[in-house]
């Protein structure tokens, strides 16, 4: 489980907004990029094509047809069933992430159309506890699949996660089964499910719903796997092969359908949904 980077994230909101933040350094080519330019290019480095992480709201704007999106997540809130405490209590962590993101947990999405195809679109929020899957993420995904099945919608999940959420222990493990089994509701109705893997997608998220889609896309250069690179390095006591666990490596090893640059993601998604859900009719309820 690559949860190790989970709690070392820089704050993305609430930090002081002083001058240096107007510029960002690309971790890949080290170019200094003006932040507005980066946002204009969908957070893709104009120099080298490195894909920065994309905020969940920007992700929805990127993929949903303009004006079609209605949020459905947000009513499901986390509990602290184990009263878990390490060097900080889970309750405190949750409160902090909720304050930073303005959302109850690590998932955001709703109904929309994508290229005209009625869709239920969910995006995992890496900014919230490393996108880790606890009961709320599991519940929203199961509800999403069930709702998509009931309303005749395609189902799309943009994954970004360090894995399962340790602070919910066995209950977070059970979300792997819960989400996986809920997907069968879609196929019973011949509705498609497309998974989009972004940097990073590891652990229990990869090993459940994210790996089981009809079509799997990944953004270029994303870290994708089961175990995190650090754990693997400790296991084998050797350096990892070049490009190991990156999207292109996964494609070569047969795990993905396509590696799609962010600029083309909307068009490719619309195309594949149009093919898989040709009778998609506009939603009436929702």
């Amino acid at each position: 489980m690559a949860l190790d980077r989970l709690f070392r994230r820089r704050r993305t909101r609430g930090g002081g907004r002083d001058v240096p933040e107007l510029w960002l350094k690309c971790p890949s080519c080290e170019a200094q990029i003006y932040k507005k330019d980066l946002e204009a290019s969908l957070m893709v480095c104009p120099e080298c094509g490195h894909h920065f992480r994309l905020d969940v709201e920007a992700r929805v704007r990127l993929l949903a047809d303009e004006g079609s999106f209605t949020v459905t997540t947000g009513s499901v809130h986390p509990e602290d069933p184990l009263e878990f405490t390490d060097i900080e209590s889970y309750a405190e962590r949750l409160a902090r992430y909720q304050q930073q993101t303005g959302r109850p947990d690590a998932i955001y999405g709703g109904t929309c159309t994508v290229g005209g195809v009625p869709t239920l679109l969910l995006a995992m929020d890496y900014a919230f506890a490393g996108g880790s899957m606890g009961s709320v993420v599991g519940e929203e995904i199961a509800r999403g699949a069930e709702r998509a099945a009931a309303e005749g919608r395609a189902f799309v999940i943009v994954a970004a996660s360090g894995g399962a959420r340790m602070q919910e222990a066995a209950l977070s493990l059970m979300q792997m089964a819960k989400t996986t089994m809920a997907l069968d509701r879609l196929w019973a109705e011949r509705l498609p499910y497309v998974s989009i893997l972004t940097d990073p997608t590891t652990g229990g998220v990869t090993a459940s719903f994210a790996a089981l889609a009809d079509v799997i896309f990944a953004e270029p250069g994303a870290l994708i796997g089961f175990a995190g690179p650090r754990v693997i390095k400790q296991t084998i006591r050797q350096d990892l092969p070049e490009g190991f666990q990156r999207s292109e490596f996964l494609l070569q090893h047969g795990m993905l359908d396509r590696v799609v640059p962010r600029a083309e993601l909307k068009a490719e998604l619309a195309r594949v949904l149009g093919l898989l859900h040709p009778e998609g009719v506009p939603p009436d309820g929702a």
Partner: protein
Amino acid sequence: MALEFEQPIIELEARIRELREYADAGGVDLSDEIGLLERKLEQLQRETFGRLSRWQRVQLARAPGRPTTLDIAQHVFEDFIELHGDRAFADDPAVVAGLARFRGRSVVIVGHQKGKTTKENIHRNFGMPHPEGYRKAMRMMDLADRFGFPLISLIDTPGAYPGVSAEERGQAWVIAQSIQRMGRLGVPAIAVILGEGGSGGALAIGVGNRVLIMENAWYSVISPESCAAILWRDAAQAEQAAEALKLTARDLRELGVVDRVVPEPGGGAHRHPERAMEELARALAEELAELEPLSPEELRKDRYRRFRGMGAVRVE
């Protein structure tokens, strides 16, 4: 290889044994003294095992001598015949599978397998499967469905193998597939956590209509050591992590993650494997009897209901 908290028990047992030998050899009647010590032993066991910490349970769960999948295949079941291979890449010795008979009916068995010796442990990769192990498990699920036989899965793994070879061959993909495959079974499925239930590598064969756990086994999303290394940044805090993770049989029963705790004899399953296996056989027979009247569709619905309800959320 005894654990620290077992020492007083083991010493008392040795004393009783000595007394008995002395009495037998010399023709002396020491039955009163021996009876006294035996009652004391029972009390000591009850006390010791009644107040074990979670971390001590984890150590018990890993104790050599506990019944493994192969032990159970041969002692709880009859006529076990091991089947091999994933029909695609390799046979994974970390997963054992086959056909057997259980009280008159045919069943399919699949489980993790650790070694009893260092050599065997290396051969079996310490019970950490590669993708081909899970593909073998899925083949067993196909077999069970095809013939309408119950599937019994036996969980005992620190986790799926976290290595380059496993990642290259899609460890995450195959775990997801195995969870899905097991969820779709149209036959009764019972999962038993025998010792260690480590994360997705355990859950991959854990999607039962009933999930049982041995009294001293653990089951969680991560091992206490790894959890400590990440959250406390110090693997030595494993004891604290074990407490926080609430990973014991009793905890899991309270959380609704498992349905039944299979009692272990005084001193633990590693010291009395036969008696532990008797308890397991009784539990399996009872649970199977409840599941067998259900139709394939009812079994799938039952499993869906079971896992769909997992988690702790508040809806506003």
